[in-house]
C-alpha cells in the first residue's frame, strides 16, 4: 500500500525532510511551496554557516542543541554526496574586553556538554596570528575549529534534485490554503493548484509555520518575524577573513558576522530586528541597518573596504518561535500532522538532522516502512568550465560548445551552465526565473550584479525556450524583467 507524505515548504528543512523520506519503500513524497522555486524563504538570506553548536545551551533549547550537533556532523557527508560548495575554516567569537571574554566563557562549558570538539580560548597574540584580518583591538576570542560555510541556496537545490531523483515530486508556485482533517487525522492539503491527498502532512513552512499549523487546528505557538540585513562586498576587495568571525552573541542573535563566503566575497551581517506580525515578507534593506552591520564589522576586522565597494545588500526574515526552541513533533491530534517549525538559527546547520528526526517520527507512526535498496545518495553539480582542468574543460566544450561561451564575465559562467540550470529547474518543476538561474550557477552574482549579462541571458532564454523578456520573471509572480516589446507604447500598447 502506497502512502503519501506532503511536505509544506521547500526550504532547506522541507527538502531535507523530503530527502530522508525518499529512502523508504512505498512512500510517496510531495513537496509544496508557494514560491516558484526551492529555498526562497528563510534559506535564501542567512549567514550560510554550519555552526559548531557550542552556543546552543542544551538546558534552554534541548532540541536545537541536539539537532545542531547531529546536523553539523551530517553536513560532512551531505556536501560530498551532493556536490555542495563548502569550506570549513573554523570560527572565532571575538571579544573587545576582558568582560566580554568572561561572558563568552560559558560556551566552553556548552561545548564540553555537547561534545563539540576544538573549542578553546585564544589570546590576542594567537588571534592575530591565526586571523591576520582581525581588528587587533580585540583582547582575544573563543575559537571553534569545526565551523563551516556552505552556499545555502546551492544546498537546497542540490538536496531537492537528489530527492527528486529518488522519486520526490515538487509542486512549486502552489500556495497552501488549507489542511483537510477528517476523523481526527489529516487527509490532505488544499493548494491553489489543486488538492493533494495525504496520509502525513509535514509543516516546514518557515515564517508561515504557525499559520499552517492553524489550518490543522494547532494553535499553541506563534512565529515572530525577525529581520536580518546583510552587505556583500566585491570579491576584488579585502580584508577577506580566513576564519568565520563574529561578535559576542546577545539574547537575540549570534552577533554580527564577518565572513568570506564560498564565492569569495566579504559578507557582513546580520541585524536582528523584530518586526510586526504582518511583516513576514518585509525583506527591506534600510540605511540604518547597513550602518549598524558595518559599524559592528569594523570592530571585528582590522579594516573595512569602502562602502562603494558593496555590490549587494539584502535582508532575510528569520522565524522566531514562542519559547525559542525548534518545534519538532508528530501530532496525535490531528493524527499525521508533523511539525518542523520555528527553525531559526542554527536551522541551516540542523536541517539534515531535522529531516532525519522527522523521517524517524513518520516511520514510527506509519510502521512497516522498509528502506529501499535502490536509493541514490549522490548528485552532481552543474559543471563550471572556468575552474576545470584544461583537458576536462575541452572535452566538455567539445561535447557541448555552449560551455565554451562565457556569458557572465564577473563569475565566468558559461551559456552551457545557464542552459543546464534552466533544464534542471524545469525538471524539478520550478519556474523559469532569472533568480533561479542565479542561485544555480552564480551568473548575475558578481560585481556588476548582472548589468553586463542579464539582458544576454534573457535573450538566450527567449531564443531557446520562447519566453520573451516581458514574460520572464526575475523571481516571484509579477516580477517581470521587462514590460513589452519595443515600440509597444507607440503602437498604443496593442502587442503587449
Amino acid at each position, binding site marked *: 500500500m502506497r502512502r503519501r507524505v506532503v511536505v509544506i515548504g521547500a526550504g532547506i528543512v522541507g527538502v531535507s525532510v523530503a530527502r530522508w523520506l525518499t529512502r523508504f519503500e512505498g512512500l510517496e513524497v510531495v513537496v509544496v511551496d508557494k514560491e516558484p522555486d526551492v529555498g526562497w524563504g528563510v534559506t535564501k538570506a542567512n549567514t550560510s554557516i554550519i555552526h559548531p553548536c557550542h552556543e546552543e545551551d542544551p538546558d534552554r533549547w534541548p532540541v536545537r542543541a541536539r539537532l545542531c550537533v547531529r546536523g553539523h556532523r551530517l553536513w560532512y557527508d551531505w556536501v560530498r554526496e551532493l556536490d555542495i560548495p563548502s569550506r570549513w575554516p573554523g570560527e572565532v567569537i571575538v571579544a573587545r574586553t576582558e568582560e566580554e571574554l568572561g561572558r563568552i566563557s560559558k560556551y566552553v562549558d556548552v561545548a564540553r556538554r555537547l561534545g563539540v570538539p576544538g573549542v578553546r580560548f585564544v589570546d590576542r597574540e594567537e588571534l592575530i596570528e591565526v586571523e591576520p584580518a582581525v581588528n587587533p583591538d580585540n583582547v582575544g576570542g573563543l575559537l571553534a575549529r569545526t565551523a563551516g560555510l556552505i552556499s545555502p541556496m546551492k544546498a537546497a537545490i542540490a538536496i531537492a534534485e537528489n530527492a527528486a531523483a529518488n522519486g520526490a515530486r515538487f509542486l512549486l508556485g502552489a500556495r497552501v490554503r488549507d489542511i483537510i482533517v477528517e476523523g481526527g487525522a489529516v487527509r490532505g492539503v488544499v493548494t491553489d493548484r489543486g488538492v493533494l491527498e495525504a496520509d502525513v502532512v509535514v509543516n516546514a513552512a518557515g515564517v508561515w509555520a504557525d499559520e499552517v499549523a492553524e489550518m490543522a487546528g494547532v494553535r499553541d505557538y506563534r512565529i515572530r518575524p525577525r529581520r536580518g540585513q546583510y552587505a556583500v562586498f566585491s570579491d576584488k576587495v579585502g580584508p577577506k577573513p580566513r576564519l568565520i568571525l563574529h561578535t559576542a552573541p546577545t539574547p537575540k542573535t549570534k552577533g554580527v558576522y564577518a565572513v568570506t563566503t564560498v564565492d569569495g566575497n566579504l559578507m557582513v551581517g546580520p541585524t536582528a530586528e523584530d518586526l510586526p506580525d504582518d511583516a513576514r515578507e518585509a525583506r*527591506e534593506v534600510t540605511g540604518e541597518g*547597513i550602518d549598524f552591520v558595518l559599524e559592528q564589522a569594523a570592530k571585528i576586522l582590522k579594516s573595512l573596504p569602502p*562602502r562603494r565597494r558593496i555590490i549587494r545588500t539584502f535582508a532575510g526574515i528569520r522565524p522566531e518561535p514562542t519559547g525559542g526552541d525548534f518545534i519538532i513533533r508528530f501530532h496525535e491530534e490531528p493524527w499525521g500532522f508533523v511539525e518542523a517549525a520555528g527553525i531559526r538559527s542554527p536551522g541551516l546547520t540542523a536541517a539534515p538532522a531535522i529531516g532525519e528526526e522527522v523521517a524517524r517520527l513518520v516511520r514510527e507512526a506509519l510502521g512497516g516502512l522498509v528502506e529501499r535498496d535502490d536509493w541514490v545518495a549522490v548528485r552532481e553539480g552543474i559543471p563550471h568550465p572556468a575552474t576545470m582542468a584544461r583537458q576536462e*574543460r*575541452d572535452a566538455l566544450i567539445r561535447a557541448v560548445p555552449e560551455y565554451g561561451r562565457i556569458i557572465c*564575465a564577473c563569475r*565566468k559562467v558559461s551559456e552551457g551552465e545557464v542552459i543546464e540550470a534552466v533544464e534542471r529547474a524545469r525538471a524539478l518543476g520550478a519556474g523559469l526565473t532569472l533568480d533561479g538561474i542565479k542561485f544555480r550557477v552564480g551568473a548575475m552574482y558578481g560585481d556588476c550584479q548582472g*548589468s553586463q549579462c542579464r539582458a544576454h541571458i534573457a*535573450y538566450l532564454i527567449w531564443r531557446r525556450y520562447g519566453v520573451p523578456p516581458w514574460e520572464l520573471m526575475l523571481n516571484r509572480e509579477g516580477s517581470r524583467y521587462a*514590460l513589452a516589446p519595443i515600440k509597444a507604447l507607440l503602437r498604443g500598447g496593442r502587442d503587449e
Partner: protein
Amino acid sequence: MSKAYDVLVMGGGPAGLAAATKAAELGLRPLIIEARDRLGGVPLQCIHPGFGIHYFREDLTGPEFVHRFISKAEELGIPTLLNAHVLRAEYVSPARKVLEVITPEGTRVVEAPTLIYAVGARERNRYEIGIGGPNPAGVMTAGEAQTLMDIYGVLPGKRVLIVGSGDVGLIMARRFALEGAEVVGVVEILPYPSGLPRNVQQCLLDYGIPLYLRHAVVSIKEEGGRVSAAVVAEVGEDLRPLPGTEEVMGCDTVIIATGLVPRASTIKRMGAAIDSRTGGPYVNEWLETSLPGVFVAGNALIINDYVDYAVEQGELAAESARAYIEGGYSLPTAGEKRVRLGRNVRLAIPQYVSGLRDALFYGRVSFPEDSVILRIKGAPYKLPLIKAVPAVMFRARVRAEVLREVAEPVLEVVPRA
C-alpha cells in the same frame, strides 16, 4: 593556434579596434580577443548620434562609427577570436605575455611580446551607490536598458526614473521619451548636471523632462514583484540625504546611470598597479602600464567623454607597441617622473612622463570653475579652459621638451591671472 603575433588586443570595442587596425597598418601582427559574438563593443547599442565628431569630423551613430573600424579590420585581415573570454592573463617577461582563452572551440593559449588591454568599463550598480529597500524587478543600469532596447528590441519600462545626469543618463531619458514612455525625472546628487550642456538641452529640456539637482534615490518601493516607486530625497552639502525631505515618485523602472568604472580586474591580477582615482592602471605617456610591454587604452584606462578619445588612445597604444618591439622589448627611457595632481585636478593620465615624446593628458577637474588655465607648474605650458566642469574631460597635448625640463611636473588648474 601556433601562429605568431606581435600584439594581443584584449577587447574588440573602439579602443581595441583602433589599436589592432593601427598595429596592422604599422606592420605588426595583431590578434583581437573579443568576448561577445561580434566586434564593436558598447557603441553597437548606442543608436544615437554624437560619435566621431573629433575623429572623423562627422556626426555618426555608435554602430556607424564602429562599423568603419570593423570594415578596416576586415580589409586588413586581422585575425579575431570571438566569444573568447580571457580566463587568465599572465605577464611572463618583458618579451612574453600569455593569455588562456576559453572559446566555443575549446581553450586557446595565445602569446605575444605585447598586450593592449582595451576591455572597457562597467557601470556602477544600484548597491554601489547605496540605494536600499527591497530587490524587485525593474532596477537596471542604463547599459542594460540600452542593450534590451536597441540590441534585442525590448522595452524595459513605461514609467521611468533615471538616476544620474551624466551623458548616459540624459541620452537614456530621451531614448525612453522617444519610445512613448513617461520619464518622471532625472535625479542628480550634485548641484549641477553631470552631462554635456548640449545633452541637457537636447535630451531633457526639449522633452520637458524634469531634472532634480541635489537629490538622491534613497530607497525603492515594490509592488507585486516590480518597482512601484522610488523614494527621492534632497541631499545636503555632504551629499547625504536630508531627513524629512523624502518624496515618493511613482515609477515602474529605475535606471541607474551613475557612471562607469574601468574593468581593471584582469590587468590587476596580471600585476599592473591601479590608480584609485581613475580606476584604471597607472601609465606613462606611451600608455604603458607598470608591466613592460602591457599597454592600455579606452575606458579601461580612464572613463572618456568621447569615443574619439578611446580611439586615439588605442592608436597611441599600437604605436607604442611597435616602438617597444623595435626597441628590443623596451621603450626609450630617460627615467619616469611622476605627474602630481595640483589645484582643481581630480584625476589625470598619464601619471608618469619621461619627456622623450609628446604627452597627451586627459583628466577632470574637481569642481566647476570659469576662466581658468590648465598648466604644468614651473613649465612654459598653458591651456585656457573657458568653462571647466567635472563632466567635461580636459585633453592637452604637451610637447616633449616641456616635460623634459620640469623636474617635478604638477598638473593644475588655476584662475586666469
